[in-house]
């Protein structure tokens, strides 16, 4: 049985509840503003469906804010319960023989004390909250686990990282709307109204672009680039990029500090694709934990170069098959070099694995 662990710190829970409530307040405000916008007169033609769409998004945001309020109230309830439990649990002797994960003995109630003095407590404390939804077994249970993991993953990352992730994901044509809205929410919550306005504008451009696209398709005009409107709007504010004189045939490049250079004169769809391609390189070079490794791996490892270039091209064009052959077609790596490194890595991995297994089994036997 996997123990659910929450932070046994009433103050922190209350602080989180306050923060959630503040975000909910901001979202309500954005939702109301969007609803007001929807009452403005829009010109006829392809813009006709926009007010209704804005009103729908506004209502969605308000509903989401209500859910956040509920979550905040739930957190406050948990904080109260934790306060009640706290005295009972911690006034007596230690309730377990060893800390969480200790090999000394199985803990009665898994716990771990954090460096700041707060305590993480395991099974039993979940009774502080309302009962878990009756999702039962099978897919529902897996979904619950997945949501739990996602929640823990999000909780571990600072808001800035989430914002950057939303900005990058917001560039995906036709699918960027929820990420742009999420970015707007995060930016409003940290008080950066200017950035939030840009994110909202990008989201609105997404809506308009998709609406125009649908309308044109209905009229039989065929596919256009309108759905990329939101992504194109993002280009203006994304990262540090500038035009530069690159060698003939080159479209763009990324420096080790994440700065993006674009071939002078590049415009339109090619600019957007190149920027998206470089954005992935840039993002990898700005993330502190992976930056150190990536900057060194790229020049020396053909396998890594292949993976990074294929991923960047896939993100840029949305065509996975073309992306898979891109690094080979353009000469970043050769098939022979790639295969030899992959085989070398597999042999080395197998060797290390075999040694570890031998060491483990010989240790058991003695």
């Amino acid at each position: 049985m996997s123990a659910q662990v929450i932070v046994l710190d009433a103050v922190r829970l209350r602080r989180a509840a306050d923060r959630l409530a503040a975000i909910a307040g901001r979202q309500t405000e954005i939702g109301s503003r969007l609803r007001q916008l929807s009452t403005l007169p829009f010109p006829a033609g392809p813009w006709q469906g926009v007010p209704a769409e804005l009103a729908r998004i506004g209502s969605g945001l308000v509903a989401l804010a209500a859910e956040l309020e509920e979550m905040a109230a739930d957190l406050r309830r948990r904080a109260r319960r934790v306060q009640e439990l706290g005295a009972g649990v911690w006034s007596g002797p230690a309730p377990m023989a060893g800390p969480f994960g200790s090999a000394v003995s199985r803990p009665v109630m898994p716990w771990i004390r954090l460096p700041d003095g707060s305590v993480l407590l395991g099974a039993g404390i979940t009774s502080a909250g309302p009962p878990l939804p009756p999702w039962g077994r099978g897919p529902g249970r897996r979904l619950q686990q997945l949501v739990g993991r996602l929640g823990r993953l999000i909780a571990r990352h600072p808001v800035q990282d989430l914002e950057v992730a939303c900005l990058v994901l917001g560039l995906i044509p036709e699918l960027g709307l929820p990420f742009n809205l999420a970015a707007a929410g995060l930016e409003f919550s940290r008080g950066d109204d200017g950035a939030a306005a840009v994110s909202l504008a990008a989201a609105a451009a997404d809506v308009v672009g998709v609406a125009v696209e649908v309308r044109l398709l209905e009229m039989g005009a065929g596919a256009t680039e309108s759905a990329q409107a939101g992504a194109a709007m993002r280009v203006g504010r994304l990262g540090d990029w500038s035009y530069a004189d690159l060698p003939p045939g080159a479209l763009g490049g990324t420096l080790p500090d994440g700065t993006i250079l674009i071939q002078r004169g590049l415009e339109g769809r090619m600019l957007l694709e190149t920027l998206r391609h470089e954005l992935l390189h840039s993002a990898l070079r700005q993330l502190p934990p992976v930056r150190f490794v990536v900057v060194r791996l790229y020049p020396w490892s053909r396998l890594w170069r292949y993976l990074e270039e294929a991923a960047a091209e896939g993100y840029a064009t949305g065509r996975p098959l073309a992306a898979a052959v891109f690094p080979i077609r353009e000469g970043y790596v050769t098939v022979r070099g790639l295969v030899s490194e992959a085989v070398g890595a597999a042999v080395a991995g197998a060797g290390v694995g075999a040694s570890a297994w031998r060491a483990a089994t010989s240790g058991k036997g003695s």
Partner: protein
Amino acid sequence: MGRLHELVRPPVTGPQARELARAECERRGLGWEEPARVRRRLLVYEVWTASQRTGGNLVVEVDAHSGQIRRVRSLPR
């Protein structure tokens, strides 16, 4: 034996290949950007310009035996 020796220690050295690549880029009017990285494959040196940059590099292939320029290409992005 002689061929094996040439494979292990080819007549053209890495710094020489770098200079040959640089001269070829200048002759073609292509911008030469430092730092350049020289990497040896079996019979060919690969010289990458602006090696700290990801994308937009010039790659010059120099024959390790004769010093001839085999190919000059630029990486798109």
